């Protein structure tokens, strides 16, 4: 009998690790693939979340460079239940918090035609890079010396 209790507790803890800790049940749902081309993906990594208005709808499955025009392409697995994304939806690479990890934010569009498996999101906005931003700021400060003179 003790061995049975031991097995039950052991398998129970395995299940707890799988379901409660790592949420194995959720990732297994049906997904469909969307692609998006960005000028710059910043620090986006595979497995980063894809969100609509802060709600997770999928994850980044693959990141590669298009062999023809050398533009980064991001492949996203979106859950099947969110299959009514319009073709004029937008995708942007955003950052969670000031220094948090990066994720793809989708903005649903208004068209009645929906994106399907393998389609490409056309309206994209690249990652904002802090270095570029600071560089632009310093450059614009240097370009207007008369503002600082006063």
């Amino acid at each position: 009998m003790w061995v049975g209790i031991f097995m039950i507790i052991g398998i129970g803890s395995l299940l707890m690790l799988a379901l409660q800790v790592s949420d194995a049940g959720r990732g297994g749902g049906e997904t469909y693939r969307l692609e998006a081309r960005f000028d710059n993906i910043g620090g986006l990594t595979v497995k980063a979340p894809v969100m609509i208005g802060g709600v997770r709808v999928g994850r980044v499955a693959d990141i590669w460079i298009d062999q023809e025009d050398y533009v980064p392409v991001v492949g996203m697995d979106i859950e099947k239940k969110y299959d009514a994304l319009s073709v004029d939806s937008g995708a942007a690479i955003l950052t969670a918090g000031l220094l948090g990890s990066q994720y793809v934010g989708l903005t649903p569009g208004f068209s009645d035609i929906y994106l399907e498996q393998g389609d490409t999101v056309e309206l994209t906005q690249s990652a904002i890079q802090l270095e570029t931003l600071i560089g632009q700021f310093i450059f614009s400060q240097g370009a207007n010396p008369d503002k600082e003179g006063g």
Partner: protein
Amino acid sequence: MKLVAELGRRGIVFVSRLGAAVLFLLLAVRGSAMCLNRGKLILQQLYAIGVLTMSVIVVSGLFVGMVLALQGYYQLVNFSAESNLGLVVALFMVRELGPVLSALLFAGRAGSALTAEIGLMKATEQLAAMEMMAVDPMKRVIGPRFVAGIIAMPLLAAMLSAVAIIGGYLVAHGQFGLDAGVYWSSMKVGVDPVDDVLNGVIKSVVFGFIVIWITLYEGYDAVPTSEGVSRATTRTVVTSSLAILGSDYILTALMFGGF
């Protein structure tokens, strides 16, 4: 010159012991394959190896989780990242501490007992008596223990991780007032079922295999005197601890090294 001779002698002893251990492993695997249909023997050993180790695993898991949560909180609060405390505790336990710590405890609690048991069986010539009766000790004694060790180890590791995560929750929620939802949901975001949990389980299976192999071999190979048994027991704990930590590095490099 004497030094060189001594070095050579030690080398030969080491290599021949290693070879004998591998031969023993082959026999033990064959023996365990043959004892698989004798469930009662395995159940007995699961009780001795698994159930009796459970208390040590649960208590130490609780305290390890509580200490991890304490230390983690003091550091994370500096970056106001204490909402990730659950993730830190869970990743630490599932990836590293769960398998390693439970294997070390397993070697200390069950491994030493097994070595002493088999060593004494040999010293009192029980093993020889079995062979006289045409009972293969590999099937009757070694096999069930081998199987039971490999089954028990991942379960014990999972228990250690689970209890530690609960212990961490007690500290995070009870002492620091961290919200329960924040603690549990930060884990779900960051812990991957395959990359983290499954790899942790694979680790603990490998550790269980290594520990039970060393344990049984040292017992089987012990010099059949009381001194020999005591030395074999010591060697079991030392060798398996080193083997666990060494193989943990290799496994971690293979699993999490960007493959």
